[in-house]
């Protein structure tokens, strides 16, 4: 309709990624409602256009093209996996449109048409490992880098390995293991981790993806590997993922994120309450147990910043909005007024490390003093330079 | 026992085909099969064992060139199994099967065996049910059956005529466009005989060709086989004694029982053999 601004939402609502991405669609809609209730953007209401790329990568590209060229959306919020982002990138570049990508990723990328509101490796992985090396984190000496076999874990682990080596960890004290997508039998791996941990204080860095986490944690719990023996820090496990796990045996296992639902600050209190109310009002399945998590917060923040940028640019024109985005700040639920970097399209983000509690929430055991600037090009890969 | 000959007949066969379709199935040629000793098929002490059960037990048999041999015997005597061995469907546990003097059948595939000139009609009529009657005959027709020549093959007028003649013979002309699966049991029997004729094999194996045919048709089939006698070698398995009498004439009839030859002789001799009456004919 006239007088509205269309916003594309490109998250898988079916297929393997629906488990994670559905909540992002919900939070995006909630944010749109919120913005509209407050008068919209430049006096115009936002109109969401939802499509389902069905966890199918070429379909992501097709849908992105459709959103931009058919539906004429001004901006797209979407994608979760790196490959989906890679798949839509050429489309955004070709049609010069704007994508807000809300998930932590492996870095090594910087595109004009994308704003990365999730963490770069230095905003998540490195601090987590530093913590585990510290006395409080358990002074780990041996490392298990465990991941699902795809790009994010591979790259992250490559960065971590280089980082660990630079800290004097020996090659023989690092074990790197990968599992196929959808792997559900972690018996051997848990046994191996256990055997490996006999050699000294060991920590596990898990980049296991999606569905595989449940069987992994179940096996871990039942095999009696407690967080006090071998702590596991995960980069892909948040509140939403823990909804599907019996967390009692996992108490003390860790996750590193830039946001946790359990953060105590007024912005977050409001955000959490707002989402719960939204879930209830929309009668989302399982609304009674609705939670917020890091990518949801990143979506929320991203959308608000985009709104501010549009208002600053007084236009939804891609180039003008991109220019206006630089240096935008927003009082985020993560407890800080965070800033969009002037040049690198990533947010400055605080890093938190949380331990799983019996109720599926995280207890924050460590945090950075201030937001960290993103380093999309890791100094541990290719000398920190783009290709 | 050499195997080097196994490819030979193949090539000579394809030359045959490229030389142009023969207009009739009547002409008898031994296409590279060495029949100098007058016999076209030698089975020597063949045994076939299925999970300990001896379906064929040291069976020896030979068929002369141009002979029409009837084989009878109780149900389960091993007649079909014998044909399975000859056509390569079943590998014998022991023993040898030679086609002519030099071709070892036990070392060949079904298709190679068919290619060197052994055709078979199955006990249960087996035709290509989704193909029309015409196409069934076309598929059976003698020609080079390699991939390439099949891909580029076109029916010549002569070949078409031949199919037409066969259809007449089978009384299936009016059905030629129908799918073979829709034929009645007896019609399928006929069709399969027709396919066998189209193959123009040197040796024809017919497993119960008249089962399910009316008496009149049985007689006709008998006449047809009598026609083929001398031009082809034939092995016919049947339980219909009138029919066997009709086609055996004065030729040899072999009685199989429990996997080996029980008796052999003219129809009259065999029919009066006490053992044959006991196990087969009944009183």
């Amino acid at each position: 309709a006239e007088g509205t601004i269309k916003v594309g939402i490109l998250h898988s609502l079916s297929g393997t990624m629906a488990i994670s991405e559905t909540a992002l669609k919900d939070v995006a809609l909630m944010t749109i409602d919120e913005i509209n209730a407050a008068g919209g953007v430049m006096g115009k209401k936002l109109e969401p256009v939802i499509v389902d790329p069905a966890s199918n990568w070429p379909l992501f590209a097709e849908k992105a093209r459709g959103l931009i060229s058919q539906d004429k959306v001004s901006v797209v919020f979407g994608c979760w996996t790196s490959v989906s982002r890679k798949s839509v990138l050429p489309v955004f570049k070709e049609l010069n449109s704007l994508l807000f990508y809300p998930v932590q990723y492996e870095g090594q990328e910087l595109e004009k048409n994308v704003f990365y509101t999730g963490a770069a490796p230095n905003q998540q992985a490195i601090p987590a490992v530093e913590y585990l090396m510290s006395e409080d984190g358990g002074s780990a000496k041996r490392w298990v880098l465990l991941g699902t076999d795809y790009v994010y874990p591979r790259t992250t682990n490559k960065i971590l390995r280089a980082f660990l080596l630079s800290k004097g960890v020996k090659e023989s004290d690092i074990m790197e293991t990968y599992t196929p997508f959808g792997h559900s039998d972690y018996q051997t791996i848990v046994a191996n981790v256990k055997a490996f941990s006999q050699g000294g204080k060991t920590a596990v860095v898990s980049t296991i993806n999606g569905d595989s986490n449940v069987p992994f944690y179940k096996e871990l719990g039942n095999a009696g590997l407690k967080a006090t023996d071998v702590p596991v820090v995960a980069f892909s496990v948040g509140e939403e993922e823990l909804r599907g796990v019996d967390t009692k045996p996992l108490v003390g296992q860790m996750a590193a994120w830039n946001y946790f639902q359990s953060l105590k600050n007024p912005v977050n209190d409001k955000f959490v309450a707002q989402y719960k109310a939204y879930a209830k009002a929309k009668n989302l399945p399982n609304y009674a147990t609705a939670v917020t998590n890091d990518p949801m917060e990143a979506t929320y923040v991203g959308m608000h910043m985009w709104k501010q940028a549009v208002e600053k640019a007084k236009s939804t024109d891609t180039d003008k909005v991109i220019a206006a985005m630089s240096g935008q700040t927003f009082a985020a639920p993560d407890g800080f007024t965070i800033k969009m970097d002037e040049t690198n399209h990533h947010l400055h983000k605080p890093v938190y490390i949380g331990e799983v509690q019996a109720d599926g929430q995280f207890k924050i055991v460590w945090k950075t003093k201030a937001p960290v600037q993103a380093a999309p090009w890791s100094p541990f890969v290719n000398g920190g330079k783009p290709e | 026992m050499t195997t080097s000959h196994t490819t030979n007949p193949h090539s000579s066969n394809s030359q045959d085909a490229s030389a142009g379709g023969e207009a009739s199935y009547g002409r008898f040629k031994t296409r590279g099969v060495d029949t100098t000793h007058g016999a076209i098929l030698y089975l020597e002490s063949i045994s076939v064992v299925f999970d300990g059960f001896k379906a064929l037990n040291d069976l020896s048999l030979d068929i002369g060139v141009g002979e029409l041999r009837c084989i009878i015997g109780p149900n389960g005597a091993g007649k079909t199994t014998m044909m399975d061995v000859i056509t390569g469907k079943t590998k014998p546990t022991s023993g040898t099967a030679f086609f002519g003097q030099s071709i070892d059948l036990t070392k060949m595939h079904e298709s190679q065996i068919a290619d060197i000139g052994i055709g078979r009609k199955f006990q249960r009529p087996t035709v290509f049910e989704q193909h029309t009657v015409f196409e069934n005959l076309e598929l059976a027709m003698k020609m080079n059956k390699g991939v390439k020549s099949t891909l580029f093959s076109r029916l010549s007028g002569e070949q078409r005529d031949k199919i037409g003649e066969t259809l007449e013979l089978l009384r299936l002309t009016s059905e030629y466009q129908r799918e073979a699966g829709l034929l009645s049991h007896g019609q399928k029997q006929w069709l399969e005989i027709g396919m066998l004729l189209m193959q123009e094999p040197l040796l024809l194996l017919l497993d119960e060709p008249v089962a399910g045919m009316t008496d009149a048709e049985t007689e006709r089939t008998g006449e047809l086989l009598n026609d083929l006698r001398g031009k082809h070698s034939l092995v016919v398995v049947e339980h219909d004694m009138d029919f066997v009498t009709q086609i055996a004439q004065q030729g040899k009839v072999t009685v199989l029982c429990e996997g080996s030859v029980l008796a052999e002789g003219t129809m009259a001799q065999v029919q009066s053999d006490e053992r044959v009456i006991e196990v087969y004919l009944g009183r």
Partner: protein
Amino acid sequence: MKSIYPSWQRLLLIMLLILPMHAVMALDLVEKTILAGLASDNNNEKIESITALGQLTNPGAAAILEALGNDKVFVTTDGTILISQDGGKAYDPATGNSIDTPAGADTITINNRLRRALQAAQASAELYSPSAAVRLAAVMRLQKEADASRSPIISKALEKEQDPQIKQALKIALASSTIKGGDTAARRQAAFTLGESGDAGFRPILAAMLQKDANGKFNEPENDVRLAAETAINQIDRHQTIVAWVGNIFFGISLGSVLLLAALGLAITFGLMGIINMAHGELLMIGAYSTYVVQSLFKAYLPGMLDWYLVAALPVAFLVTALVGMALERTVIRWLYGRPLETLLATWGISLMLMQAVRSFFGAQNVEVANPSWMSGGVTVLGNLVLTYNRMVIIAFALCVVGIVWLVLNRTRLGLFVRAITQNRRMADCVGVATGKIDMLAFGLGAGIAGLAGVALSQLSNVGPDLGRGYIVDSFMVVVLGGVGQLAGTVVAAMGLGMLNKFIEPFWGAVIAKIAILLFIVLFVQKRPQGLFAPKGRSAE
């Protein structure tokens, strides 16, 4: 999120906490100075304080430690340590008073490091616990803290201990604490003891003894002891090899039984009935979701029986999936017999709908299905191989289900009729088999078995809309590899693949193992083009 269900549990915890405290309150108070460290921001000071509390070995200190572990200890703005109680009250361990919780009191955060210190501190006290299990757990924890300072405590406990198993564990714990500090003989003895334990955890200590320091001197000065250490290392390594083998066998069987369970229903619907049932995975999923629903109902209405929800889930899951299966059979599949490839298309459509239905009802996220307590954890064998209870239960369960299926198919006429129908539907009808009814029952049975498998799978992995997709390919491979329609083949194939996988995985990793298995299947079928248990002869055509 877990606001409703843990309430009963929390209640239990609180009760446990309060009960001993009432007894304690009158007894001992704890000096404020010892507690002061807890109020510090520095974890080192907290740990000092915790260690000191542990050495007090009095029930008052124990109560504080326990409360710390349960996040029940507060520090007020002025640095007073309080234990929270029911109804907003707090107990002051230094004074024994119960007061209102003051505003601004902050929970003392326990992280892993503190938790570890806490456990060690509690361990000393727990060495005297009346419960053997608690004692054993405490000893095991002490074994890991190879610290000479603990030797006296352990020796004392060793004198008192009666239980032979715990005694042995104590000896090892003692050895691990004396190996560094004791005299030559003690060290040598300790090395032997550690070697006998077979526990790889001690290997680094022993190995370190054999290494030379910066000055080129051995860390362990005595040659004798070094020899003993070397023997011990060999002993440990040998033991570990055995452990690895036993482990692999167990893992293999357990993976095999998972594959078997997942495939069994398909062995009926596809193997016997000839339906290429692409919705099989979704039937597994329905079974798993039934488990979830039963669990939720138990939480809501029978919290006391929660541990037994799984038993109730079995018949429920069986019935629900069987009914779904029968409904599918009557509405869709019955029209497709004899057209197997069409069943592929239709059941694929059904599977899409079922998946989406679950998404609409239960959300796209996984739902939580917890192991009941009797299925949590595991038993440790051979020193450090944990055989988890849930896996063992599932192995046993798989055997039971196979047995039942076998009985139904071979001891009732259903099996005979089903096989007859698939081989010649028309003739089966002619001899008087009510084909419609049998089809429905057989499909219902296959679906129900899938439902049972779903219950088992819910105990191992995630319960979500995609659950089925993860198993469908494997299930088909198992059924086909075994030979379609051969129950025994299915069993052997499942176990074989499970074993093979688990024996490859340690060498090549999970990814290559999976690839190797798939290629193995490709090659195996070349050898046996009709599967493992292929019918031979004429009838096979």
